[in-house]
């Protein structure tokens, strides 16, 4: 499991070759075997931990998903019965799960574009419009990314509280009644998405600022000499040249939102009436509240396949673009 505050995939552009600057293949008398041994020795701790706590569980989840693994198997895992594709078949007849799939898709389809757009906007604003107090703005926009999600989810819950929350009180001031955001089936999901966008746009912003700074000044100067206005410059220069960055940001944001768990867990517990139940939350419930672990494993794999599919698709787009 990666412990960064989100998915941290390297760019597709990373070459898998050893790359420049690495030791050239030893020639002649310099013994290859010495490096072989040290190389593997240096790799051992990581590989052992990786094998035990990542590779094994990934395979085990797959095996589990074909069994009736339940509470009594936690202490006796080998007694679980093979049930073939049963879990997967039941999954797609399970209305709760289908709802969770729909909710997760909703989260991604609305949340990702909003996050990317606002993040890009913030980047352009900070990079090309603002020259004073830049660090302050940068810290302000990025701070939500690094803060403890459970804590900020609790804060948002209070901000949106219908009785004494900030939004409700402000609405009362203006003489309107604010909806009970987290208590209404219509508003609960948009509220969670709003919070996720607030939390994650800083990541997109930082990536885009790095991308913007890589655009040669000459390109912009040339465009301006040709009489391009600000809007044209944005459309014809900035966005096209930022395309790989934007795609990459889209990939990691999508992966993050497909796995969304903490926000609904803390803010709504999946309610009202499952309107904010996401796939991860459903999996957690099935796995750790009811101990239907085989069933939950099937969920985990369905989600994994969706994530892989979307990642591959987006990376392919990235490749086509860089060509």
């Amino acid at each position: 499991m990666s412990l960064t505050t989100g998915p941290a995939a390297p760019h597709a552009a990373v070459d898998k070759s050893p790359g420049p600057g690495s030791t050239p293949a030893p020639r002649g008398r310099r013994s290859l075997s010495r490096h072989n041994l040290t190389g593997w020795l240096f790799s051992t701790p990581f590989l052992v931990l990786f094998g035990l706590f990542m590779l094994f569980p990934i395979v085990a989840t797959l095996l589990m998903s074909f069994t009736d693994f339940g509470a009594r198997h936690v202490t006796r895992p080998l007694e679980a019965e093979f049930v073939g594709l049963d879990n997967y078949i039941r999954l797609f007849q399970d209305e709760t799960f289908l709802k969770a799939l729909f909710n997760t898709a909703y989260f991604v389809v609305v949340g990702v574009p909003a996050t990317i757009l606002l993040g890009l906007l913030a980047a352009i604003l900070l990079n090309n419009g603002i020259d004073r107090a830049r660090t302050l703005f940068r810290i302000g926009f990025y701070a939500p990314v690094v803060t403890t999600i459970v804590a900020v989810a609790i804060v948002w819950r209070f901000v949106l509280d219908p009785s004494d929350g900030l939004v409700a009180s402000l609405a009362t001031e203006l003489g309107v009644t604010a909806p009970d955001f987290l208590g209404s089936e219509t508003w609960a999901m948009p509220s969670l998405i709003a919070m996720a966008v607030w939390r994650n746009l800083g990541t997109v912003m930082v990536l885009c600022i790095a991308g913007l700074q890589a655009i040669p000044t000459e390109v912009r100067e040339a465009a301006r000499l040709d009489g391009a206005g600000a809007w044209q410059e944005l459309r014809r220069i900035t966005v096209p040249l930022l395309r790989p960055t934007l795609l990459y940001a889209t990939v990691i944001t999508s992966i993050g939102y497909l796995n969304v768990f903490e926000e609904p867990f803390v803010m709504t517990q999946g309610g009202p009436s499952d309107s904010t139940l996401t796939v991860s939350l459903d999996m957690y419930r099935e796995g750790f509240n009811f101990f239907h672990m085989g069933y939950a494993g099937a969920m985990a794999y369905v989600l994994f396949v969706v994530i892989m599919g979307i990642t591959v698709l987006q990376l392919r787009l990235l490749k086509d673009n860089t060509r």
Partner: protein
Amino acid sequence: MTAETAAKAHRPRRTGRARKPLLYAVASLGLLVMATPFLWMALSAFKSRQDLTASPPVWIPTHWTLDNFAALLDQLDMPRYFLNSAIVAVLVTVSNLVFCSMLGYALAKLDFTGRSKVFGLVLAALMVPGNLMILPLYVLMNGMGLIDTYAGLVLPFAAGAFGVFLMRQFMLQVPDELLEAARLDGAGEWYIFWRIVMPLVKPALATLTIFTFLGSWNNFIWPLIATNDPDKYTLPVALATFANDPNRTVAGGNGMLMAGSLLVVLPVLFVFAVLQRHFTQGVATAGLK
């Protein structure tokens, strides 16, 4: 994507005089929206019960009070959760610094058969969502008797793929001649790694420290699963459990929760504000959250 530029910001467009104030207004409004939840949290933590439920909302407490903190400490063993979070975060960070650097060094500077395969494995590991592992991980940890132990909280995160990727990137930039010279002088690989390479990649180690420490501090789903005994809760688990507890004293409960959230978030914001340069470096280098 991002070339490894420590690029100097190219000179901003000289916007017309009329546009400047507008841009600042938009940016400041954005900043206000971003900061509002934090301000609300920080100020509410010190409000009296009357202020907490006042409508219109009271921003600045009419009288500042520590009641919320007192009530929170009365109901929750915060120092213990702080200690748990800190112990886990320190152990995770130290083990990542050592193990990720070791593999990073091997991938960057040692020729060995199967090196590219190992690197491929690391890249693949970056793509795998944590949710895929938690079910059997729980069974495994339970079988090893590690539920409700620090080991159970630390081990799954003891060596992250991101750290390996980051360290490899930086170690590639260490000149080979330096290592060759040391080898000719008869230095062993272990010596070279600790005494020559590690001091040269201090900035990367700083970046990795921050990311790993905060990642661990903010981690939620695994500690939630791997602890049953409240004595072993980490801060986020304790806070979420408290927030979702239907029996919680409702009156003034929000004040307590804001105090708790503030205590959890404060160290994070402090670390971030002091070391924010390393953050942007880390994000720009490897492109991550």
